[in-house]
């Protein structure tokens, strides 16, 4: 096992930043998010998770797809160049690492590959940071996630006294650690610290099967009453990937972009003729929970929730997915 002392970490980030854009949790406007490392400044690797998940780095909030020209009856279009810049993402927690596997299913399987996502995903190396302390809103273990060791990452890091232990998981990870040179020292017998124990315990077994029989249940009316119908939960969710495609016209030319969208909004499913299959917040909230806990498992064999707790932390009215799971299991049919 290799170790880096805390004060040397910025140097390591700077070394990686020579060949890639390095993104690491930092403070911005009173919250912590993944921001580019430009050689100086404070890191915010402690204190649990970032406010926003790193999904923006693979699936940007807004992304131009192609530009077009229209003149009279003629038109032409040009694709945007591929997003081939290399990225190194440092300090990803196990829950967010798992969310990438979920996004991969959505964007890369079932007959079509989303090229925008694929390019960014393939050009990004992920360095995980184990959790030794949980936030009150954490429940990743409910989904079989180990807060002490992330899945599908290139390097695993653990916080220890005075610094971090690092272990390469993939070939690309080994290369990253080679780049560190003598910033890393061998710590032969060092043991990773104990993983955090998330305080919220939720048993998700059987919830998909239960939900399959609950589509028409009055529970959805009750649980949706307090929902404001805002999109905070979906935009802060590491596994929500819905998007919209829109255009922006500027005279004879313009561009088509895609941007995040939220199933909580009325416009999301409203058709051109005015018909809306999910007309009120009851149907929309139900769809959100069913998507996470029933539809996604049915389609891809896993839950579309990683227990990061962001929705629970930021929902203005305390709509709590762990409570929904518990209540759904208690409902009598």
């Amino acid at each position, binding site marked *: 096992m290799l170790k880096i002392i805390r004060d040397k970490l910025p140097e390591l980030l700077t070394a990686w930043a020579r060949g890639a854009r390095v993104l690491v949790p930092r403070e911005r406007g009173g919250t912590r998010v993944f921001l580019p490392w430009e050689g100086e400044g404070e890191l915010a690797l402690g204190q649990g998770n970032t406010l926003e998940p790193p999904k923006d780095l693979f699936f940007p909030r807004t992304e131009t797809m192609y530009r077009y020209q229209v003149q009279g009856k003629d038109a032409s279009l040009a694709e945007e160049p591929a997003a081939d810049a290399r990225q190194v993402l440092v300090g990803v927690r196990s829950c967010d690492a798992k969310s990438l596997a979920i996004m991969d299913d959505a964007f890369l399987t079932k007959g079509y590959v989303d090229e925008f996502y694929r390019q960014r995903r393939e050009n990004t190396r992920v360095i995980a940071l184990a959790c030794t302390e949980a936030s009150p809103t954490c429940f990743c273990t409910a989904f079989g996630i180990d807060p002490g060791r992330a899945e599908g990452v290139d390097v695993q890091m653990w916080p220890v006294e005075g610094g971090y232990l690092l272990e390469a998981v993939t070939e690309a990870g080994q290369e990253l650690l080679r780049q560190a040179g003598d910033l890393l020292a061998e710590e032969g017998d060092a043991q990773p610290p104990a993983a955090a124990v998330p305080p919220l315990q939720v048993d998700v077994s059987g919830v998909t099967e239960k939900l399959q029989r609950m589509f028409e249940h009055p529970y959805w009316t009750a649980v949706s009453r307090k929902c404001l119908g805002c999109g905070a939960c979906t935009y802060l969710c590491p596994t929500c990937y819905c998007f919209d495609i829109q255009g922006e016209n500027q005279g004879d030319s313009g561009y088509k972009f895609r941007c995040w969208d939220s199933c909580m909004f009325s416009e999301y499913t409203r058709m051109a003729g005015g018909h809306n299959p999910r007309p009120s917040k009851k149907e929309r909230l139900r769809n959100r929970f069913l998507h996470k806990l029933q539809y996604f498992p049915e389609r891809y064999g896993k839950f579309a929730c990683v227990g990061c707790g962001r929705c629970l932390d930021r929902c*203005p009215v305390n709509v709590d997915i762990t409570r929904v799971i518990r209540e759904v299991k208690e409902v009598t049919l």
Partner: protein
Amino acid sequence: MKGIQEQMRARARELLAQGAVQMVIGWEKGTFWYLSPPAFVTDPEDCDRLVWDEFCTNNLAKYLLDYKHTGDRIALFVKGCDARGIVRLLQDNQIDREKVYLIGIKCPGVKDGRQAAALGEARRGEVPLAEKCRYCTHPEPVLYDELLAGDAAAREAAPGEGRFAEVAKVEAMSPDERYAFWTAAYDRCLRCYACRNVCPACNCRECIFDRSQSGWCGKQMQRSENMFFAITRAMHVAGRCIECGECERVCPEGIPIMALNKKIIKDLNELFGEYEAGVDLEKMPPLGQYKLDDPEEFH
């Protein structure tokens, strides 16, 4: 504050049992000790869910719009700011006074849930007042059908000074600093519309931000569109903002929205004379009426 909670449950039970109302909207205990989210009670047996504590933060007025087209009569617990929200909705002809039964609570001010989470339950007593309550001018409801007699007397109305302190801070900056301040804030905006959805002044049946096809505002989450959203919403609630501070509280990104709303309130006060939205049913907002001697400057 136990007294109020007991009365709350008792009145809710009576009203539901008598059939005087079909629903009671109050607060209940949430996932954590520092959360008391909105509760909707329809069964008299279920009234013990209701709580009254220092985290009953949510302004409940907006929920009445969800039941606008039902025949239901609804009882609502109102703090000072909730009652002002009701006045706003009444002035905008959004709700029918006859269908609402208001149970007033003298509000001592609610506490900041986020700081409570950081301090921990052991230090519950040290949790500071929520930002939105610091300069509250009407802790006692301005409109109600009955007022709960509480053992916790309402806090003295906060002194007026300080109410515009944040505004003054921004005003004191140079133009480029102000630009940097606001763009840094709104570059974070996710356009989740929590601010709009919680706001009792935002009650349009169709919001232009839900009609991206209209072409007025692009759905791009980027600087120009985010600022367009910010300015449009601020101007739209101008003269109707009741300073409940809910927009700023619910913002997941912590954008100082009230520093924008309060700027407009301050300007309106200077141009049109002192006015507080949602206080007096009879007194229409300055921008909601036209007078020949209106100042030219406010467009």
